[in-house]
């Protein structure tokens, strides 16, 4: 575990956020197995330290553009789990009244510019949001989250090029979870590291253990300081692993259970928990209490969502045009 002089309340806040993501995703997975939720979802279990680490160093007014695996990014940016779950369940009380769903939810008020169902689709949007901030001479930064698969899209390369040319305040955070759906990274990326590609666009980068929240935070801090000073974009590659399949129908036949077991030993939440215990910041019982509180919060979010109403078909044409 990396070093850092953080006090116990800060650490417990990260711990709570990571748990909130973990239990939210587990609940969504459970609801699918029981056919209580419609559609699909891409869960980020195992990758919680990236979302929480990066967002914990952002200011409230900073912006985040996410991807298809975006629940964690949203929760880490401060979205309420009940409104997010309601959105996934297609309810009127969701962030977008159920029109967006898992891959197209947003909360502009909290600086979350949206999940995105097109691989790489959010990268130019984040770049453009950063351009607007620069043109308006404002101080916010924009974070663009995407996976290793998106690094093969044309918009990835085109956007990095423009961001570097125009020195816009964007931080590209690549969550390299080793698989673009089922295809292992060795079959899709010719470079050793995805961050190597940033160099081709004259963008400084850091490669970190994405399961170690201290490492993620260190890199994010460096990136944010650099970007906020007006130096242009920064790139962070977080090496991590998604425990679940790509989406709900994925049986994970393209990889071994042994590989999964090894990565689960590197659970980002357990790592932080153990750190807090070793440093004697909290007792087991105290952390168990937090755990229980968060589980309860997620159950309440589910009850809220289940009891919420759906948008009526007569409201179908609302917000087609502004």
């Amino acid at each position, binding site marked *: 575990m990396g070093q850092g002089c953080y006090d116990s309340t800060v650490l417990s806040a990260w711990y709570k956020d990571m748990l909130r993501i973990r239990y939210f995703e587990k609940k969504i997975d459970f609801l699918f197995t029981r056919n209580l939720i419609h559609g699909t979802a891409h869960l980020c279990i195992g990758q919680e330290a990236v979302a929480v680490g990066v967002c914990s160093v952002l200011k409230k007014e900073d912006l985040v553009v996410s991807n298809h695996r975006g629940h964690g990014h949203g929760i880490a940016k401060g979205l309420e789990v009940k409104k997010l779950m309601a959105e996934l369940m297609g309810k009127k009380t969701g962030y977008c*009244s159920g029109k967006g769903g898992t891959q*197209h939810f*947003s909360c502009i008020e909290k600086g979350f510019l949206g999940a995105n169902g097109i691989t790489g*689709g959010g990268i130019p949007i984040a770049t453009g949001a950063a351009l*607007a901030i620069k*043109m308006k001479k404002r101080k916010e930064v924009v974070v663009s989250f995407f996976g290793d698969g998106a690094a093969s899209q044309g918009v990835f390369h085109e956007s990095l090029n423009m961001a570097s040319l125009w020195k816009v305040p964007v931080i590209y955070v690549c969550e390299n979870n080793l698989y673009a759906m089922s295809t292992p990274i060795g079959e899709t990326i010719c470079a050793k590291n995805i961050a190597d590609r940033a160099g081709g666009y004259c963008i400084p980068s850091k490669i970190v253990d994405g399961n170690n929240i201290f490492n993620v935070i260190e890199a994010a801090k460096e990136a944010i300081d650099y970007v906020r000073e007006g130096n242009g974009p920064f790139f962070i590659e977080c090496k991590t692993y998604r425990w679940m399949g790509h989406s709900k129908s994925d049986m994970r036949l393209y990889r071994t259970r042994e590989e999964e077991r090894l990565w689960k030993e590197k659970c980002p939440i357990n790592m932080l928990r153990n750190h807090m215990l070793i440093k004697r910041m909290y007792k087991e019982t105290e952390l168990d209490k937090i755990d229980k509180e968060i589980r309860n919060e997620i159950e309440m979010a589910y009850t809220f969502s289940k009891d919420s109403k759906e948008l009526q078909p007569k409201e179908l044409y609302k917000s087609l045009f502004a």
Partner: protein
Amino acid sequence: MREISYSEAIREALKEEMLKDESVFLLGEDIGFYGGAFGVTRGLIDEFGPERVKNTPISENSFVGVAVGAAMVGMRPIVEIMFMDFITLAMDQIVNHAAKLHYLYDGQVRIPLVVRTPAGAGRGYGASHSQSLEAWFMHVPGLKIVSPSTPYDAKGLLKTAIRDNNPVIFIENKLLYAAKGDVPKKEYTIPLGKADIKKRGKDLTIIAYSRMVHLALEAAEELKGGGVEAEVIDLRSLVPIDMDTVINSVKKTGRVIVVEEDNLTGGVGAEISSLVNEHVFKKLKAPVRRVASADVPIPCAPALEQAILPSKDKLIKIAKEIMMFKR
């Protein structure tokens, strides 16, 4: 009244809106010093500087995406796509993002984006620099589509498009850029979704937009010699479409031709023909007819290029067939 060209009218609209609103800025390939492939933005960089008249790399999908992101944060970007054919490279950002985000986010964001692009054949540029692809965009809920035929309309409609809070595909025409027309110096705008009857008539309705309006007017003039009074409706915007004006005209004439430069199958004319049938079938004295480009890639050779395009003669031939039609 003074006369200026279609491209000058567009440039004036850009300039006036940029002076009026600091959040309006331009993005596109070679639009700075060079002034764009057709010179439409020439000189604007001197007045507004490279930050607001921003040359981009050749990355259509991403710079449209950049415009979408900037629009989400309160800017009003105007993107130039050098040839409409190149808009194919930006389909993802236009179709999956610009058109949908306001709806998907249930009104939390607005995307006040204008994508300007020249369409049309007739200059021998070949199949990748001559297409008219407006029908594709009509098929996408959430987009507005404007396609002016005169300098006056181009200026007034573009100003409205820039002030609109939705993504607008603003389709210009290469052969019209040099065409001159009356444009008042005084400020004016033209609402989207309001067709203009360019010529009145009682026997036949010719529905057109962009360059085809001029073809329709020439044909109408010649038909007049044969005693046929054609009404020429310039749609000006395809979304929203002014069906009231169309329906009122058809109620009077009972005969309809749609003339369009895009190719026939799945085209704008097919949609309008259906709308006419659905709304005023009983008033029709003859089937709705379409004059459109042939369903082939646009060849370079001048004779072949002309052969695939709608022409005054083709229009007159169809008009005569309709006038002779007996149930």
